């Protein structure tokens, strides 16, 4: 039942699908470009039919227009090893559902260019009660930063760029 919960969130199996087929469905976390606020609103409103949910917690990563020498961040260019990234996200989902008493979990991460002020990461946790949402949200964001093969290149308004450091320990 715990297994079913997240695989079936907004993915109720049609009559002909077996549970095994359902389980193999990819979640496709990576999205091209920014995460729009209408996408976020749509994700929220879809959950009004899940009336066992009492609390949602959402994290949004937004690109900062940080100063850099004589210039400012224009955008961040995200790149990934797509298969490895989707696998890493799937592993995070599985660990999260074991660790926290969640009903739904949705994660979306941008690939490609995201301008300063735009959202590049959307983590959406839904639980029966509020208590579990906060710890789950923090754990998920930290885990995404640590374990998913995504890289970011900060492009500045003056045309220069910098690859941003991650916090992965040396192998």
């Amino acid at each position, binding site marked *: 039942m715990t297994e079913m919960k997240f695989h079936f969130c907004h993915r109720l199996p049609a009559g002909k699908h077996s549970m095994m087929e359902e389980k193999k469905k990819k979640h496709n976390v990576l999205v091209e470009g920014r995460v729009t606020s209408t996408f976020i609103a749509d994700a929220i409103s879809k959950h009004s039919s899940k009336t066992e949910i009492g609390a949602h917690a959402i994290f949004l990563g937004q690109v900062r227009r940080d100063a850099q020498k004589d210039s400012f961040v224009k955008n961040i260019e995200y790149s990934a090893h797509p298969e490895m990234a989707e696998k890493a996200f799937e592993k995070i989902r599985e660990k999260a559902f074991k660790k926290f008493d969640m009903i739904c979990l949705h994660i979306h991460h941008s690939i490609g260019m995201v301008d300063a002020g735009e959202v590049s990461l959307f983590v959406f946790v839904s639980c029966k009660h509020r208590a579990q949402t906060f710890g789950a949200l923090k754990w998920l964001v930290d885990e995404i930063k640590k374990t998913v*093969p*995504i890289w970011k290149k900060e492009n500045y308004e003056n045309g220069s760029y910098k690859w941003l*450091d*991650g916090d992965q320990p040396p192998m």
Partner: protein
Amino acid sequence: MKLNLLFFGILTDATGKAKQEFESDATDVDSLNKQLQIIYPELIKHTYKIGVNSEIVSRGKKLYDGDEVSFLPPFAGG
């Protein structure tokens, strides 16, 4: 044997490319890595993990013809 190399993040700057078909007699990841550090000496300055066919592996991992080998600097998502 033929390997498909993929470079990510800052390693695309270190090698000047994002991918490369590479003919090599290296039988494991460690010896392939040493060959590449000679061709692309900038690699030595960086920390990275190595993935084979979408799995992160230890440096002793054996290589086979057609393997995809990824060079993965510290992750920086979010």
